[in-house]
């Protein structure tokens, strides 16, 4: 039953999915630049399917980091999907192991944001599946394009790619710092703290380890703000 609300939800979900999916080109190129094969890049997008963790893993490897530092940063960034799942479970109520296992793979930033923002439960489910599905398809396709395009790059193109990777991380961080985000001033403090810790540690620890250690900057967030007057 097509209704204006359903059409609008689908249009928004697919539009966001395509836009975010395009970002997969940058991931594919970054993965190739870090020494991953095309198949490894594609496997990451298909199996890991959570952008920030994927970028962190190849970023650490590309910087010469070890396996444990790369895994540590990817898994730490993946913890937020656990919280998304907790928020989504009552909305999606995936019954049975098989449905829950399939649903879980699509629990990412964009599908959660769209599902939670929908005006009712039915539209929330539609937004989750449409956004998650569209991002999945385009993210994987564009990863392949990026990985294939990046192999055999010249020196200047490599310099361009080197500049795209930090910009990609900044673009992932940016929405958390905007005035419309939850407690943006806290996010800014924590992000700057993380950057300072990482730069200070860079000369002293193996590549990539400083990124994992920068997680201590989360202490700058302080205690949760009291919601009730105390």
């Amino acid at each position: 039953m097509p209704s204006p609300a359903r059409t609008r939800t689908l249009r928004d979900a697919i539009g966001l999915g395509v836009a975010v999916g395009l970002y997969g080109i940058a991931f594919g190129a970054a993965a190739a630049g870090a020494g991953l094969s095309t198949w490894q890049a594609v496997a990451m997008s298909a199996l890991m399917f959570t952008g920030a963790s994927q970028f962190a893993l190849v970023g650490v490897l590309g910087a010469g980091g070890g396996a444990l530092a790369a895994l540590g940063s990817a898994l730490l960034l993946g913890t937020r999907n656990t919280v998304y799942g907790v928020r989504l479970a009552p909305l999606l109520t995936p019954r049975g192991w098989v449905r829950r296992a399939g649903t879980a793979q699509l629990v990412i930033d964009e599908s959660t944001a769209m599902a939670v923002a929908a005006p009712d439960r039915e539209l929330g489910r539609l937004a989750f599946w449409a956004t998650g599905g569209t991002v999945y398809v385009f993210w994987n396709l564009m990863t392949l394009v990026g990985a294939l395009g990046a192999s055999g790059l010249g020196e200047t193109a490599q310099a361009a790619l080197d500049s795209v990777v930090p910009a990609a991380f900044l673009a992932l961080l940016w929405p958390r710092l905007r005035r419309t985000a939850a407690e943006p001033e806290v996010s800014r403090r924590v992000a700057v703290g993380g950057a300072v810790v990482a730069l200070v540690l860079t000369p002293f620890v193996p590549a990539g380890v400083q990124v994992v250690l920068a997680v201590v900057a989360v202490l700058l967030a302080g205690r949760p703000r009291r919601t009730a007057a105390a």
Partner: protein
Amino acid sequence: MSSGTLWTVVLVGSLGCYLLKFAGLSVPAAWVQHPLVTRVVDFVPAALLGALVAVQAAASGRDLVVDGRLVGLAVAALALALRAPFIVVLVLAGAAGALVHVLAG
């Protein structure tokens, strides 16, 4: 790093990230909804992404270096402040980095 090691990292990382997603749909909400736990999880991405921005833009092995990447980052920040779409931000940053490489080379 050998291809075998890379595959191990890719597959172990993928499995770990998947289990983190699956856990969210499966565990009782009360386990994860402790205020301190949600506080930490809410702000871990900011700490790590801040660190990754800094390291990817200014570190080379154990050295801190200033090169086209910082120029690209500045251009990206400007583009983001002007609300440019993701893909435009990345293209502009890449173009800036390449330009610095050509001019400095």
